[in-house]
C-alpha cells in the first residue's frame, strides 16, 4: 500500500503543477503515473528559545557551553551561510535565536574576545543586508563588519594547517579557527548532507581542503549525497572533520526546521492537485497568469520577497557526531517518503532557487546541479529512477548568469563545456587554471562572487546522476544550445518528452513524478543482492 504522500494518477486526475524556473507549468501525466509529494510539515517547537537554552545546558557528549567558558579565552562563533535554508526564512532566523543565547552566555561568563564568522568556504560572501536578515538588527549593528564577517578562503596568510588524515588529506582551516580556544558552530540543517563535520571542516576551509572530496572520483562514489552512510563525500569529510575536532575544541549546535516552504495562502502547492479546493485552484490560475506575464525582474522579485515560515523542529548541542546523529534522525523524519519500485522515467520540475543562487538567477550550470545533483540524490537506498532511465525536467534553461555572483560560471559553460563534458577532463585540464584566475579571485574576495573553482564543483555535483541516468529531456527550454551543452535533449511538450523517453524505455514504462519543492526524499530498500555486495544501486 502506498504511503499517503504517494499518489497514483487516474484518467480523471487534474494536471500537475510543476515549477519551471520562476514560472509554473501544468502537465498532463498518463494514468498510472506515480506522483510523490512532500510530507506535511512537522509541528514546530512551541518555545524555540527555551529549546535552544535547554540544548546548550544539556548537550550530548560534551560539557554544557557555560562550563566551557572562562574569561580571557578566545572564541570563534561560526555559522552557516545564506545557502540555508531555501528560501530565506521569516525573521527571526534560527541563527539569530541561537546567537542571541550564545552571546548572552559569553557575556555572563566574561568572554569578550570573540568573532562571528559566516562559514562560507568557497561560496560567495554574503552582503551586509543578507547578514542583517540572518543575525538580526541588534547583533548586526553591534558587530558588523569588524567582529562579524564572512570567511575568506583566499586571505593572504589567512589559513593554517591543522593536521592530516591517515590518507594524507590536509586539513587547512581559517587562522581564526586555528587560534580559537573554542569554536562554537551554529548550524541550520536543511537537508541530511548538511551539518556534522561538514560545518567546520568544509565551512571554514579553502580550496586545499576541498580538493580531497570535491572531485569527480569521490562524487561518482556517492550513492546519494543525502544518505551520509552511502556518500563517499561524507566519508572523506568525516575523516577530515575528525582531524579538525581532535586538534581544535568544537562545540556544535545543530538545528532542524520543517518543510513549511510556502506560507498559508500558497500551502496548497505542496499538496496533491486533486485535493485543491476551488479557491486554491483559482489562486493557482491567477498566480500562474501573473507570473507568465510578469517581466523577468518582477517575477524574481515576487519570489524573493516571500520568505518562508519554516518552524524550528529540533535543536541539539555538544559533540559533533553525537549531535549530528540526532539531527539526521529529525531530518529523515520530515523528508523521507517510503516508495517501492524504481521508475523508468522520472519527471521533475526545476524550481527557481538552489543553494547557490540566492538573490540571483538560476543559471544553466545550476540547472544541472538541481537536476542531476540535488533532485537525483534525494533518495536513500535505491535511486528513484532505474540505471540508464530517463529524467524529464521542466525549465527554460535560459542563457543568463548573474554577473556579480557567477562570472566564472560563464566561462565554464561557454568555453569549457563546448570542449568536453567529461568531469575528469575538466578537472585535469582546467580546474587549476581557474583556481588561480586573479580576476575571479578578486571578485570572490572583494565582491560577492563564488570562488572560481565552485563552477567545477557544480559540474562534479551532477556526476553521480550523470553516471546513473541515461537521458535527460528538457521541456520548455527557450533555446536549443544550452541544453545541448549540458548534454540534454529538448521537447516542446511533456507529451513529446514522454514519447521520446519511451523510445529507450521498456513497454508500459513506470513513470514517476517527484513533486517538489518543498523538499522530500524517497526511501527504497536496496535489492537483496545489492545490499550484500554494497554495489551501485
Amino acid at each position, binding site marked *: 500500500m502506498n504511503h499517503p504522500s504517494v499518489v497514483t494518477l487516474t484518467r480523471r486526475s487534474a494536471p500537475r503543477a510543476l515549477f519551471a524556473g520562476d514560472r509554473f507549468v501544468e502537465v498532463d501525466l498518463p494514468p498510472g503515473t506515480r506522483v510523490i509529494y512532500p510530507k506535511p510539515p512537522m509541528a514546530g517547537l512551541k518555545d524555540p528559545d527555551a529549546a535552544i537554552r535547554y540544548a546548550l545546558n544539556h548537550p550530548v557528549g560534551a560539557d554544557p557551553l557555560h562550563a566551557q567558558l572562562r574569561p580571557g579565552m578566545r572564541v570563534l562563533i561560526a555559522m552557516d551561510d545564506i545557502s540555508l535554508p531555501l528560501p530565506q526564512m521569516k525573521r527571526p532566523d534560527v541563527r539569530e535565536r541561537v546567537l542571541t543565547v550564545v552571546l548572552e552566555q559569553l557575556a555572563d561568563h566574561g568572554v569578550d574576545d570573540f568573532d562571528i564568522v559566516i562559514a562560507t568556504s568557497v561560496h560567495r560572501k554574503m552582503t551586509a543586508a543578507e547578514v542583517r536578515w540572518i543575525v538580526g538588527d541588534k547583533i548586526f549593528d553591534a558587530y558588523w563588519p569588524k567582529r562579524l564577517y564572512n570567511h575568506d578562503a583566499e586571505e*593572504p596568510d589567512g589559513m593554517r594547517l591543522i593536521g592530516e588524515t591517515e590518507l594524507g588529506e590536509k586539513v587547512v582551516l581559517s587562522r581564526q579557527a586555528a587560534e580559537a580556544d573554542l569554536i562554537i558552530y551554529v548550524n541550520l540543517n536543511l537537508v541530511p548532507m548538511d551539518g556534522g563535520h561538514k560545518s567546520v571542516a568544509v565551512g571554514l576551509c579553502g580550496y586545499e581542503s576541498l580538493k580531497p572530496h570535491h572531485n569527480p572520483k569521490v562524487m561518482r562514489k556517492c550513492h546519494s549525497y543525502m544518505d551520509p552512510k552511502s556518500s563517499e563525500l561524507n566519508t572523506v569529510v568525516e575523516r577530515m572533520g575528525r582531524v579538525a575536532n581532535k586538534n581544535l575544541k568544537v562545540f556544535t549546535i545543530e538545528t532542524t526546521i520543517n518543510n513549511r516552504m510556502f506560507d498559508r495562502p500558497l500551502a496548497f502547492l505542496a499538496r496533491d492537485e486533486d485535493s485543491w479546493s476551488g479557491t486554491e485552484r483559482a489562486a493557482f490560475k491567477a498566480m500562474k497568469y501573473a507570473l507568465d506575464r510578469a517581466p523577468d525582474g518582477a517575477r524574481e522579485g515576487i519570489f524573493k520577497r516571500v520568505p518562508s515560515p519554516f518552524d524550528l523542529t529540533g535543536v541539539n548541542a555538544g559533540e559533533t557526531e553525537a549531535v549530528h546523529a540526532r539531527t539526521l534522525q529529525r531530518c529523515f523524519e520530515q523528508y523521507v517518503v517510503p516508495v517501492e519500485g524504481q521508475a523508468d522515467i522520472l519527471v521533475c520540475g526545476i524550481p527557481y532557487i538552489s543553494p547557490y543562487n540566492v538573490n540571483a538567477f538560476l543559471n544553466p550550470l545550476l540547472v544541472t546541479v538541481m537536476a542531476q545533483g540535488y533532485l537525483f540524490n534525494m533518495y536513500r537506498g535505491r535511486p528513484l529512477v532505474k540505471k540508464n532511465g530517463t529524467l524529464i525536467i521542466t525549465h527554460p534553461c535560459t542563457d543568463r548568469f548573474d*554577473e556579480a555572483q557567477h562570472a566564472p560560471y*560563464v566561462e565554464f559553460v561557454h568555453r569549457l563545456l563546448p570542449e568536453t563534458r567529461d568531469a575528469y577532463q575538466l578537472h585535469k585540464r582546467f580546474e587549476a587554471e581557474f583556481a588561480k584566475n*586573479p580576476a575571479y579571485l578578486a571578485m570572490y574576495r*572583494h*565582491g560577492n562572487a563564488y570562488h572560481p573553482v565552485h563552477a567545477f564543483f557544480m559540474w562534479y555535483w551532477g556526476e553521480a546522476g550523470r553516471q546513473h541516468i541515461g537521458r535527460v529531456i528538457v521541456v520548455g527550454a527557450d533555446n536549443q544550445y544550452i541544453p545541448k551543452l549540458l548534454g540534454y535533449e529538448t521537447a516542446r511538450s511533456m507529451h513529446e518528452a514522454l514519447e521520446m523517453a519511451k523510445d529507450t524505455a521498456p513497454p508500459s514504462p513506470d513513470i514517476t513524478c517527484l513533486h517538489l519543492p518543498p523538499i522530500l526524499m524517497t526511501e527504497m530498500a536496496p535489492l537483496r543482492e545489492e545490499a550484500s555486495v554494497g554495489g551501485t544501486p
Partner: protein
Amino acid sequence: MAACYFDVDGTLVRTNLVHPTLFYLANQATPARTLGRLAGAVMRAPLLGLAELRDRRAFNEALFQLYGGMSEDRLLLLADEAYDKVLRGAVYPGAKDLVRRCRDEGHDVVIVSGALDFLMERLAKDLGASDVIANRLEFSDRVATGRILPPVVAGPTKAVLLREHARRNGHDLERCFAFSDSYSDVPMLSVVGHASAVNPDAALARLAKAHRWPILHLDRT
C-alpha cells in the same frame, strides 16, 4: 607565461591624470608662478573638456601642455612627493591584493597608463609591477615642451603597445589578462584572452555585460 596589464587611473587608483598635474601646477618655484600656472589651467579647462569629449588621446595631449616650461629637474625632484601625496594613498586596497595575486601566480605585472612615466615607475615599484608603459614628456634643454613623445599611450595605441610588449616578452595573449575602468580602453581589453572591467564607467559596464567579461568593484572595498 602570461602577463597582467593594468590601466591605472580609476582602475588601480581613485585619482586621474588631472590630480598630479594640479600638484605640479600648485608647487611651482615661486607663489607668483604657481598662481600664473593655476590661472592658465583654469583658462584651458574648457579646451580640456572639449578634448575629453573628442577622445582620450586629445585630452592627454591638451593636459600635458600644462607641463610646458617646467624643468626636468623640478619634475623629478617633486616626483616622490607627488607620488606620496597624490597617488600612494589613492590606491584601492583591493587593487593591491589583485596585483599581488597576479605576481604570486607568476604573471608579469605591467602598468599601461596615460599618466607620466616617472610617476608610474614609482607606482610600479610600490605595487611590485615588473614593467611600465606610460607617457613620456618631451624635453628640450631639460625643459618640458608641453608635448608628449610618441607613441601617445591612450585608446587604441594601448592595444598596439600591449601587443608589442607581449610579443617582446614571449607572452601568449590568449593567456594574458587586462584590467581597465574605461570604455576608451576597450581596444586594450579586446586583445587579451582574459579581459576584466574594473570599477567600470557606464559604457564599459554595458559592454562588459554584453561580452560577459568579469566586472570587479575594487572601489567598494
